[in-house]
């Protein structure tokens, strides 16, 4: 038994470090050509602008989808906000800024809110493939109100879990923060408990099939893999589950997938 446990811990420890940072590991993630990333970033920006999106929810593929659980394609989600931009050199323009929750580089069990550019957003991608939800214009304005208010940061919980339970405030990941902000906008509230109650009542998270051994040993490799905030079943917020939620309640204007040469409506 001791030998088996040793092997399991070794396996978890040797495998997970390369993958827990999903998309930022040089060994596990091929580097996309910078020119391609920039071109794709501009394509996504122009496409969204052409559709009149002031605020959108955008997701990227940070890992090989073949290695992800069924029903999950995107690994990072953030708000894109159309803005008037002034760079450090004084140059100005109009385009999107990205409002992210990122894992901290030095401590993957913690996160921070980071604003960056579309190119930054796709720099760590596995492939040039984005999921886009353009909310209803009314909801866009409400989202902007929240993003521009102290509520946006107040809803951030720096205790990070890859598989955070969106019905709990114990841990949070980027997708859950996006969902929390969305709920704050929908219900015009900054009350975290009320937001969680509404998520539990109306949002269907993505189930992730895990057995007890996996749940037991994964945290041995990284605290970011904890499932302590879950009950018997593990369910987490994903781009797909947010898209389904918004579609079910007629909250989205358009939902689609965009690649360098294709655009497909979900």
């Amino acid at each position: 038994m001791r030998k088996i446990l040793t092997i399991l811990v070794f396996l978890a420890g040797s495998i997970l470090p390369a993958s827990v940072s999903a998309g930022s590991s040089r060994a596990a993630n091929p580097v996309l050509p910078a020119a391609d990333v920039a071109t794709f970033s501009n394509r996504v920006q122009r496409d969204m602008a052409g559709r009149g999106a002031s605020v959108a929810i955008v997701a990227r593929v940070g890992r090989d989808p073949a290695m992800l659980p069924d029903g999950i394609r995107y690994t990072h989600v953030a708000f894109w906000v159309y803005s008037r931009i002034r760079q450090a050199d004084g140059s100005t323009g109009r385009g999107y800024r990205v409002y992210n929750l990122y894992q901290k580089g030095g401590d993957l069990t913690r996160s921070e809110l980071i604003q960056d550019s579309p190119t930054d957003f796709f720099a760590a991608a596995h492939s040039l493939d984005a999921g886009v939800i353009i909310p209803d214009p009314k909801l866009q304005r409400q989202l902007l109100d929240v993003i521009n208010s102290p509520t946006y940061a107040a809803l951030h919980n720096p205790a990070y879990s890859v598989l955070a339970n969106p019905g709990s405030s114990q841990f949070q990941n980027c997708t859950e923060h996006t969902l929390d902000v969305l709920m704050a906008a929908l219900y015009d509230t900054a009350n975290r408990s009320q937001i969680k109650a509404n998520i539990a009542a109306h949002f269907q998270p993505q189930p992730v099939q895990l057995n007890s051994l996996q749940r037991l040993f994964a945290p041995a490799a990284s605290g970011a893999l904890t499932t302590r905030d879950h009950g018997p079943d593990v369910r987490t917020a994903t781009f797909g589950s947010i898209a389904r939620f918004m579609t079910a309640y007629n909250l989205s204007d358009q939902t689609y997938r965009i690649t360098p040469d294709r655009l497909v409506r979900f």
Partner: protein
Amino acid sequence: MTFRLKLAGLTLAVATVAACASPSAQHATQSANHSAQAASHGVSAVVTGAGTVTAVPIVAAGSTLSITGAALEEVGTEAAVSGLEVLDKGLGLAPAQTCYGSPVRGNTACVAADGPPRLR
């Protein structure tokens, strides 16, 4: 052996579900910035670290927008290199005991949910 391989594959899959990885440290240092927000009369200035970028959201939902000037990336001039991140196994997380509507282990349900979401 089969069991171990299966476990390895599944744990790998678990680890990749919703990781919110930042770009490489190099890239992040160059252009990703911590944001701070200052609300003012309904329109906020979003100020990014070290004064490198200032972005003010524009309310224009529904109409066709344009991407101009500094918002456009100059193709081929910036390295988009993914860097290694050091895994820190530090734990010591303090669980946040917040009430919410659906009982889950370690928490207490004490808030009633509102009705289904709808556009206001």
